């Protein structure tokens, strides 16, 4: 089962298992006062890999992301390795491109200036950054919207601006926290296909949180299922479905059987949260 992933030929050569993971978490735990959010998360992400994380609500997915983004320190004893180095979470500030659930666009900046915000903070030349953003607009479906302000954009467009901002912050690892959670089903499907296109072109490593199993399988090279709180990795499944992936994939038998397995695992965890109260 350990065959190389079936990326199209435009991608880098297929990775070997010997390659060092870009992100390696071992026994990662996090406690807030009395509440244990994470309990021994083990997770490795290979360079160029698209890893999706699903789990019942409140399982500590966002805490996991905050740690990897450098915003929270894990408990003592946790191992956090990034690009082969053991690091403190705070050393990851500015090293990982992080996209939270909400677009968080700045109301007083137009599309271009929102997109270049991380470059500006890096100290890049503003004019060059703007020119680069201008070139990227069509790819993100934002051609002609350069001078629009967030309040003039639809939810899907705002989300694309936020994604563009994330892509412009050129870091090897991208963290996407339910980026399409607030969109309607149709827009969401379009955005998923579009994200895969963009990802294959830019060759980034992606860690993607979602609560939508379809989305997790459709996008991921690997799907991780988290346990109920305190969160840990319950199940890790490779998704050996061919790329590029089309809309018809979601009705294929392989997809359905994988979905069945993942849904069972998630339901088992959800029952731990809701089970005792419902009887």
């Amino acid at each position, binding site marked *: 089962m350990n065959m190389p992933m079936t990326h199209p030929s435009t991608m880098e050569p297929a990775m070997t298992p010997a390659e060092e993971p870009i992100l390696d978490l071992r026994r990662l735990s996090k406690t807030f006062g009395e509440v244990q959010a994470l309990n021994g998360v083990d997770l490795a992400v290979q360079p160029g890999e698209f890893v999706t994380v699903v789990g019942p609500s409140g399982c500590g997915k966002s805490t996991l992301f905050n740690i990897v983004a450098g915003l929270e320190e894990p408990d003592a004893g946790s191992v956090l390795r990034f690009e082969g180095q053991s690091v403190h979470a705070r050393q990851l500030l500015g090293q990982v491109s992080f996209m939270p659930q909400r677009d968080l666009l700045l109301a007083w900046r137009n599309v271009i200036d929102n997109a270049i915000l991380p470059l500006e*903070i890096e100290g890049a030349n503003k004019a060059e950054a703007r020119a680069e953003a201008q070139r990227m607009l069509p790819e993100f479906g934002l051609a002609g919207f350069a001078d629009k302000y967030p309040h003039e954009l639809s939810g899907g467009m705002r989300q694309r601006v936020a994604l563009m901002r994330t892509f412009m912050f050129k870091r090897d690892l991208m963290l996407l926290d339910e980026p399409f959670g607030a969109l309607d089903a149709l827009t969401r499907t379009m955005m998923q296909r579009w994200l895969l296109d963009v990802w294959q072109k830019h060759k980034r490593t992606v860690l993607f949180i979602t609560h939508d199993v379809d989305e997790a399988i459709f996008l991921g090279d690997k799907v991780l299922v988290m346990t109920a709180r305190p969160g840990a990795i319950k199940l890790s499944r490779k998704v050996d479905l061919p790329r590029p992936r089309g809309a018809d994939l979601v009705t294929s038998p392989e997809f359905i059987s994988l979905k069945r397995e993942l849904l069972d695992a998630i339901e088992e965890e959800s029952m731990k949260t809701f089970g005792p109260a419902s009887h």
Partner: protein
Amino acid sequence: MAGAQPVARRFGAVLPLLKGVVVLAAVLLAVELLVIAFDIRPYVLPRPSAVLEAILRTPAAYRDAMVRTGLETLLGFGAGALFGIWIGIAFSRLRFLRETIFPIFIVSQTIPVIAFGALVVMWFGNTILAKAVIVFYLTFFPVTVNALLGMRAVDEKQVQLLRSFGASDREIMRKLRFPTALPHIFVALRIASALGLAGAVVGEWFGDTTGLGVLLLQGMYAENMVAIWASILCSAVLGVAFFAAIGLAEKRIVFWGGESA
């Protein structure tokens, strides 16, 4: 096509002012008619036309008074606004300052401006500076409070996002907290402009030779109802002008309407 939009925009900015002028004219006309219809005595309420006539008889006196009082207000207001914003930023960043100096500020604001005015005139004499200081005293506090409030109203998720990009506290202040606070600051500036003008007028009562406050006082001593109303009218014009200028600046600077999401 290209020129059409800016023109329309400029007109759009002037429109509220125009409406205000029309409404003011209508009110004055109504008062005029009421005074005539009910035969109200001039020492109770003079006819607006008589008031306007009085102004036009000695326009230089009223113009000089408006310039003087306007300048006092502008100086004190400008200094108060800048100081208020600056100290608001300092308070938001330094908890120590917020907990030690801020209570003193609050106590300082409980001193009635009249009591304070006497002191200021003793310190600075009958100068324009004395009035500017009174205006400053009335202006900086609401600006400080709102600047502080605005900067603490920032979305923590946005702060986290900027931190994840590697932003320093200073950058977060400049690129996020300060712009977020701007709509709050403008609310304070509107309040402060009215307060400041009142402060300048009252400040002149402690001794001066020109200014709207002086004209008011002279009118009162002479029991000249028309002169009093003429001063009131000039004060109103000045007040509206300040308010409108701030509103215009607000529209240009806080063009996104103050909603951060």
